[in-house]
């Protein structure tokens, strides 16, 4: 059907595109510009060429932050594994199952700040966890959970996983419920037991959900901030043990007022995020082609 040129599509897209242009596209351009400057926000930017990037290469804390961010990505496979398991567990007609699903969802609704504060109280040196461990005589001295460099990142990752359990579980659950019964019946007829059923039918059937969760949760892992901020009280952990790329970005921009340097860090983050998203989608697409 030939239509003469109409402004309508553009008018409809207008407001949204304007919003995206102002709040996403312009900032990207601005960040690229800032990364070549020395900018403290109070004073105007001063062009310094590649100096920020050179400093970045020599900045051991930056590399530490990068490493921590990459390590943090481990939450994605863990979440996928645990949540598929959880979805399989709750995918049954037991009385009260809806109540259980709701209970698993509570951390998601409460938000990372409230949950983080609760965790912080419990992990205090004189807090609940040590109290339990001491009274069970598992340990003889309180462990300074939040002040031990080696524990900072794992605790933050655990918190992220804990927060995400209910959310991704629901997604996989919906996916499971979309898998046609006939496929399971066919598997049973072929002699599959319960676990094989899930391996040969559920998992392949969950492929779209796995892709979605992989992309979303790895993006969230690369952008994690709240958990680290709350658990380390804004300090990033002793010896920068909790500092991820995003935390480092924030600290440089808003604590130390080096917005130019922070922009350079931000660009690195963008490149990594892009790379990961492409890898995620490609990997899972190829898997989908191979599987069918």
């Amino acid at each position, binding site marked *: 059907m030939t239509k003469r*040129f*109409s402004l*309508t*599509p553009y008018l*409809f*897209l207008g*407001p*949204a*595109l*304007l919003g*995206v242009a102002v*709040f*996403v*596209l*312009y*900032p990207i351009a*601005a960040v690229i510009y*800032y990364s070549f400057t020395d900018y403290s*926000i109070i004073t105007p930017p001063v062009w310094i060429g590649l100096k920020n990037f050179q400093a970045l290469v020599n900045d051991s804390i930056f590399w530490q932050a990068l490493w921590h961010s990459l390590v943090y990505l481990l939450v994605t496979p863990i979440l996928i594994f645990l949540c598929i398991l*959880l979805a399989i*567990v709750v995918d049954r*007609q*037991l009385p009260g199952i*809806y109540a*259980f699903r*709701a*209970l698993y969802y*509570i*951390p998601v609704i*409460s*938000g990372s*700040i*409230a949950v983080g*504060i*609760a965790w912080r109280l*419990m992990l205090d040196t004189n807090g*609940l966890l040590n*109290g*339990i461990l001491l*009274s069970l005589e598992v340990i003889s001295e309180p462990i300074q959970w939040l002040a031990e460099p080696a524990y900072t990142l794992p605790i933050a990752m655990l918190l992220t996983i*804990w927060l995400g359990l209910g*959310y991704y579980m*629901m*997604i996989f659950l*919906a996916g499971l*419920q*979309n898998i046609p019964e006939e496929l399971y019946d066919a598997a049973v007829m072929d002699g599959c037991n319960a676990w094989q059923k899930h391996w040969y039918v559920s998992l392949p059937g969950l*492929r*779209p*959900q796995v892709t979605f969760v992989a992309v979303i949760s790895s993006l969230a892992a*690369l952008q994690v*901030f709240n958990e680290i901020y*709350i658990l380390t009280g804004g300090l990033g952990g002793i010896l920068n043990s909790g500092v991820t790329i*995003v935390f480092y*970005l*924030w600290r440089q921009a*808003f604590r130390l007022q080096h917005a130019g340097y922070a922009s350079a860090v*931000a660009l690195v983050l*963008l490149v990594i*995020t892009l790379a990961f998203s492409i890898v995620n989608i490609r990997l899972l697409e190829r898997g989908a082609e191979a599987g069918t």
Partner: protein
Amino acid sequence: MRRAHPAAPRRALETVAWYIILCLVAAVTVFPFVWVVFTSFKGPNDAVFSVPPQLIPRNPTFANYVRVWDQLPIGRFFANSLMVAGATVVLNLVFTSLAAYPLAKMRFPGREVIFYLLLATFIVPPQLTSIPGFVLAVNVFHYYDNILALIFPSLATVFNIFLLRQAFRTVPDDLLDAGRIDGASELRIWWDILLPSVRPALATVAIITFVNQWNDFYWPSLMLHTRDRMTLQVGLVALQGMFASDTRGIAAGVVMTVVPILVLFVVLQRQFVRGLTGAVKG
């Protein structure tokens, strides 16, 4: 679509086993809240941290809630969060559904380019945009320390545009053509035909947007500094700072801020779940 497991007698044991597992998992997800709730009712003589730990307070009291309520404008935090989340949802729905319509149903030059451009912006981290965003908020829009700073940048989220585009694509073209034959403008078609047909998807987008805005901390913490203007998440952190020596007070504050949203969730449970899982169409 849903298959039922017939509950045969020999499966009773299996059922019990499943309940045990379910309860264990529930204990893991719910325990911190249980502890926080109990702590919030503890009086000054009920030890908060002791070995062995004491969960249930012996002299429960509301004093902690009163103290926190008096010293922090919790009600204001709520009102601010509600205003921000509510305004964002309404405006966002309008703009993203407007934008999704042409992307889903119209042909025009540049459609693919715009689509992929939007797709690309999806991965941009909010912390990256926060640096120039801060400068914009201060120098250009002059809404620093104002809740407008939270609403404006969220007016059009790419995620929602895609969700609604998916939803619109399921609407049969005939419906739209029928409207066009009747002489309706595209705006009328959008409002009268398209939107009503995708109500579940709209609910999805509304809920996702609401929860995201409600729980957002990073950007609000940069923008809001006067206590009266803070949203709940920022206020919670201020609470934690203010009551650092007062664990019971912190617990009371956390309970006060979490319970209402939990209540909302319980009431709207079905919509929540449908909304959040409907986001993933294969």
